[in-house]
């Protein structure tokens, strides 16, 4: 089942609004997930814990995260899936656009196999 973990650059309000939207898909902001214990932690630790708990990370970070996932793929390590948001199409400040886009992902891709998935959301 798809579970969305929103990285720290995404407003926690996005998680709150998506949860209120009536979808059964769990959505958490990083600042609240695991009592906020992964805020400020190494990205590798975050991805590892998300994989263990089968959460899919949503992020605008296309710089630091892809090299880690590449290394993991080459070492046959699994992750819980990552959704990369295209900032040019869905600007960080336009939280309404992100909510709409993620709502569609929840409706149309809920049943996908998310383990090791990399999705480009634009």
């Amino acid at each position, binding site marked *: 089942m798809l579970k969305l973990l929103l*990285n*720290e*650059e995404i*407003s*926690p309000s996005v998680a709150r609004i998506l949860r209120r939207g009536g979808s059964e898909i769990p959505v958490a902001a*990083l*600042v609240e997930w695991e009592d906020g214990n*992964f*805020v*400020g*932690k*190494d*990205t*590798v630790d*975050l991805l590892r814990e998300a994989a263990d708990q089968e959460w899919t990370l949503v992020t*605008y*970070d*296309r*710089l*630091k*995260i*892809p*090299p*880690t*996932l*590449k*290394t993991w*793929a080459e070492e046959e390590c699994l992750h819980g899936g990552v*959704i*990369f948001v*295209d*900032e*040019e*199409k*869905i*600007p*960080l*400040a*336009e*939280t309404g*656009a*992100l909510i*709409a*886009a993620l709502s*569609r*992902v929840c409706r*149309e*891709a809920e049943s996908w196999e998310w383990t*090791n*998935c*990399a*999705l*480009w*959301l*634009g």
Partner: protein
Amino acid sequence: MVKETSSMVVSMRLPMESAKRLRRLANRYGWTPSDASARLVEEGLRRTEFAFIDFRDTAVGRQVCIQASSLSVWEVIQLVRSYKGDVAAAAKHLGWPQVKVQAAVHYAEVYPQEINEAIADNQATDVATLRNLLPQTVEFVPKKPVRG
């Protein structure tokens, strides 16, 4: 991070154990002990000179970040630019005190090239680049326009 074109030699006396630790650190990153000490001094100076600033290892090398946050300074600046320079709006977005966002802005004003390069590198990773790194990448384009 250290890209000064001119430099001067400063000799310093280190305790033997510190010198060994410096050499081990340099070996870990593939730096010379001289490079390592220059980088550590520069990072220490910037930590001293800027509030809320820290440095962290990432998959793409050392990055300047905001204390008690997972975000690099360039990510905060990208957010501020998305809000057209409105620091208060960016702080509200993150649920941060405004002063932490302002700290990132001040750092970026002093080291604009470093921050702009990181933002450009992030933007350069388009869907084609991502597919090269992660062949399983799937593009999901919402059927309805999400803007406006």
